């Protein structure tokens, strides 16, 4: 059983390293879209998840709620992994 916290840490690290500018303060609760997260960032994030967890998040799961912040996204990923 994979822990949400572990996924959260990985996502946070990826987004800080690859997506957001260093001066942007990103936490697990940062509103991603308000901080500038866009469609291309999303595709890059989906590819990162595919590489690390071996699956592509189905489109039906990519909702406004799931993308609210890193915590919500990590929780969606954890649920999908544990359901597999």
């Amino acid at each position: 059983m994979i822990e949400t916290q572990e996924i959260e840490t990985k996502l946070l690290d990826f987004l800080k390293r690859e997506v957001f500018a260093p001066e942007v303060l990103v936490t697990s609760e940062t509103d991603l879209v308000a901080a500038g997260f866009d469609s291309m960032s999303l595709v890059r994030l989906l590819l990162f998840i595919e590489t690390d967890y071996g699956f592509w998040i189905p489109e039906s799961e990519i909702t406004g709620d799931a993308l609210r912040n890193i915590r919500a996204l990590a929780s969606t990923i954890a649920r999908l992994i544990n359901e597999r």
Partner: protein
Amino acid sequence: MRGDPQLNGSDYLMLGFDYELRRRGFAGNSCQIVLELGSAISTEALKARLADLVNRYPILRARPGGVFLPKWKSAGHSVIGPQVRVHRDQPDLRQQLADEPLALKRGELLRFDLVQRDGGRMDVVFKWAHTLMDANSAEHFLAVVGRADIPLPATPTTQPLHAGKPLKQRFQLAWKSIHQLDQFCQAAPRSVGVRRPSAPARQKFRVERFSAEETARIRANGARLCGALGAAQYHSAVSMVELHRLHERIGCVSPSYVLPVPVGLRRKGSMEPLFSNQMTMLMTQFLPENLGSTVSAVAIVKSQMAAGLRTGLLESGVVLSELFRFLPLPLYMAMVKQGLRGEICSLFYGDTAAVTPLLTTFFGATIEDFTHIGATTPSPGLGVIFYFYRGLMRVTVFHLENHFSDAEAAGFAAGLRARLLEP
């Protein structure tokens, strides 16, 4: 200029398009933003602010030059720098302003035309050379010009977009993009070309405006077909379906259509470096059978975008554009045009998303409306920009008169509007 900052690969591509447009008698690769103000502003205040910014950022009065690598050079004694002019509104003025080229070689990279309108209102027509900065930068720069409370850019000079890897590795990466173009050649795209040789070498534009209710419908359609944050994919798919329908109407169906999708390279939450084009193109190809419906076009956009990122085409495109900077402009443009032994681009497409929320006032005057006007090259001679101002959607459609008639461009714009609302 001290240190002579380099043009990056994307700046150089924009300079190449400028060269190509001027060579064919057009005004060049310059874009415009029009701010409709509720009241007039002081011309002197604008001039003083620009003079201050020019002193701070010498790149604003430079010209593209350099022998082996394109650089920003001081324009010397003949320098013009940013210009400010004042006009009374008249029927043909907007077209005249659009048709006037910037004096790029004399360091005129920016121009402000202040148009006095009835009732004390004023429009600010801001024209800039695309080789200096991209559309998002231009929005932010306008905010910096018009508001004293916006922090000034810290790193205004450009740098190559990609560096650090050994040359051999860079060539290997670049080869991926060339290989992709080779694959596209199996059904090489063909543009309409100069169908109307007697028409003037002039670009025209029209703006499609959407109400709050229409904008909400379009956003909902995008979310339904492309998921959350999928608006840009939806807009590009709709554009390509309507492009194919336009080609059908004029009896010029292409074996395929290529759409270079601009991808922003700035880290999210930052506008640095401001005076630079921070983007690359992700190439997508559509066969006519992919463009029978919006749904089938959306599927192509999504799959090719993911595949492009998965196989490293984004990085490859960046590296390729950086390598191209070593070529002289005429050779570069000849290679771009021959890239597909057909056409490397079937439609100029931009999606600048929401206009920066910093642009609500300009020198204290309320901004009542905002318009982007892009530039397109021969060929394809047709372009679109999608953007949102104060939450309302706008689409600017621009065309070259010797490629498409006004009626054909209007038909394309009407089709776009209808399909965005009813996919």
